[in-house]
């Protein structure tokens, strides 16, 4: 938290002065209420292709609700979500996934009834033959592509540092490993846009640093990333742009240095009235 108030750290944070790509995700006047309470209100922002774009804000600011709205888990009460040039507001998550959007969850959503590798293989769903008859009769083509998917999933598990868990039951894995398993599963879908909801929450410093590296690598491969994270060191260190939320509304937006210097953001975090 003191990251925000420490100008020195904020200054050397983040690669600046890079040219923003075309918009991949555009959120326009988005709002959502739950029983009369506004969780997200009139929120607009744009995520440029290739960026690591972080969403920050105190607890209850609406970050996870925003993720749920963007990925189609919740339907917006108002406003639009444009992804890759198309209006996708209110579309089902699986349709958005087919368009190239994938995510992880703050509260783990692991398939605990499967092995770790199978979890990641489910991530390959969109790239596999999921018809009934080929599955029932085990067509050779299906078998071949399935074993390719197995290799790819194992590769991805290696990339997030889970090689030793290939055959483990997901239910037997430690928390930190499951956080990474979610990232591997999301990556297996080969998304254009990856939304990560607190990937470092509950991890120790070393594990956080590893996640940090994973995110950078993924971004370097051309995947656009929207990141919700409380670890300010991580956010300041890897984000290209940051949108700060409070009470469901946009408080500030800009480079890490700009946002860190914004007095309203500092006040929101420290609990003072802005």
């Amino acid at each position, binding site marked *: 938290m003191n990251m925000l108030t420490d100008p020195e750290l904020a200054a050397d944070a983040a690669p600046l002065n890079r040219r923003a790509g075309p918009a991949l995700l555009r959120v326009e006047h988005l709002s959502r209420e739950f029983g009369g309470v506004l969780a997200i209100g009139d929120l607009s922002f744009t995520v440029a292709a290739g960026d690591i774009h972080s969403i920050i804000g105190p607890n209850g600011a609406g970050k996870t609700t925003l993720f749920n709205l963007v990925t189609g*888990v919740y339907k917006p009460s108002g406003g639009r979500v444009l992804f890759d040039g198309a209006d996708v507001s209110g579309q089902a998550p699986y349709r958005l996934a087919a368009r190239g959007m994938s995510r992880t*969850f703050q509260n783990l959503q692991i398939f605990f009834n499967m092995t770790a590798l199978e979890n990641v293989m489910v991530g390959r769903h969109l790239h596999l033959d999921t018809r009934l008859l080929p599955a029932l009769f085990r067509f050779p083509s299906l078998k071949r592509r399935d074993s390719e998917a197995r290799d790819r999933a194992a590769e991805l598990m290696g990339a997030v540092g889970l090689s030793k868990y290939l055959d483990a039951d997901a239910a037997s894995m430690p928390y930190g490993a499951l956080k990474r398993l979610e990232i591997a599963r999301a990556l297996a879908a080969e998304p254009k846009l990856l939304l990560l909801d607190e990937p470092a929450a509950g991890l120790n410093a070393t594990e956080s640093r590893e996640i940090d590296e994973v995110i950078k690598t993924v971004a370097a491969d051309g995947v656009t990333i929207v990141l919700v994270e409380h670890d300010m060191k991580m956010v300041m260190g890897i984000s290209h742009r940051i949108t700060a939320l409070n009470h469901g509304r946009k408080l500030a937006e800009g480079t890490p240095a700009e946002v860190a210097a914004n007095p309203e953001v500092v006040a929101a975090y420290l609990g003072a009235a802005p």
Partner: protein
Amino acid sequence: MFAELLQYMLSGLTIGAIYALAGLGFSIIYNASHVINFAQGEFIMIGGMASATLTASGVPLPLAILIGCGGAMLVGVLVAKFAVERARNASTVTLIIITIGASIFLRGVAELVWGKDFKRLDAFSGETPIQLMGASMQPQSLWVVGCAAVLIVAIGLFFNRTLTGKAMLATSHNRLAAQLVGIDVKRVVLASFALSAALGAIGGAVVAPITFSYTEMGIMLGLKGFTAAVLGGLGHGPGAVAGGLIVGVAEALGAGYLSSAYKDAVAFVIILAVLLFMPNGLFGKRGTERV
């Protein structure tokens, strides 16, 4: 024309009152333990059989009902303690099988104790029909509806006015929080089974003169009670009562105007139609799943 309608309504409300008690029983247990107790119908059967056989052997009716009620409560507590509590973390379907196992077990015991034949219980206040605007009604119907009304009001007071009742409500809202403020949630589960068993047994006793008693009487009554509870929204007490009355009346109307052969299907057609549009029943909570 009107008399006919009234006649159907009256008989519908009578049987609906029993469904309401059974539905309330499902809801109370569901609230305390998130278990659907498929042995609920057997509590009704125990109440009906006990009062019929005990009065036949000379026990005064009130005492017979009391014994039946106490027996059902004991059985309920035993089922909760030795089957349900031990399988707390099992899946929904596993718990369903456990309570179905309990119901098979209880029917088996009942057959052994009371035999397979129908038992007759005399109506509490004679069988001279009461005339009401062209419709006639058995006095026993008044007993059924009256007893159900008293029990339902009593349950309402219990949950809203007494400390035990409030503790049970609190447990249903948040088991962990209830545990943290010192509520013994295990005892709450036991109490919920005892309470539901009592409701069922008294219902069984008052309805016995109308339906006769036999060891399988609880099967359909239990399923209809489950329907009532789901119709009202699982865990919603007043909803279960409303659900029971709706099912009872609809059934009577269906049997009267459409087809008596399809009487038992009416409840299930209604529940399917309602769930189609209201997946949490008529009064159930509509929530957005948190992820």
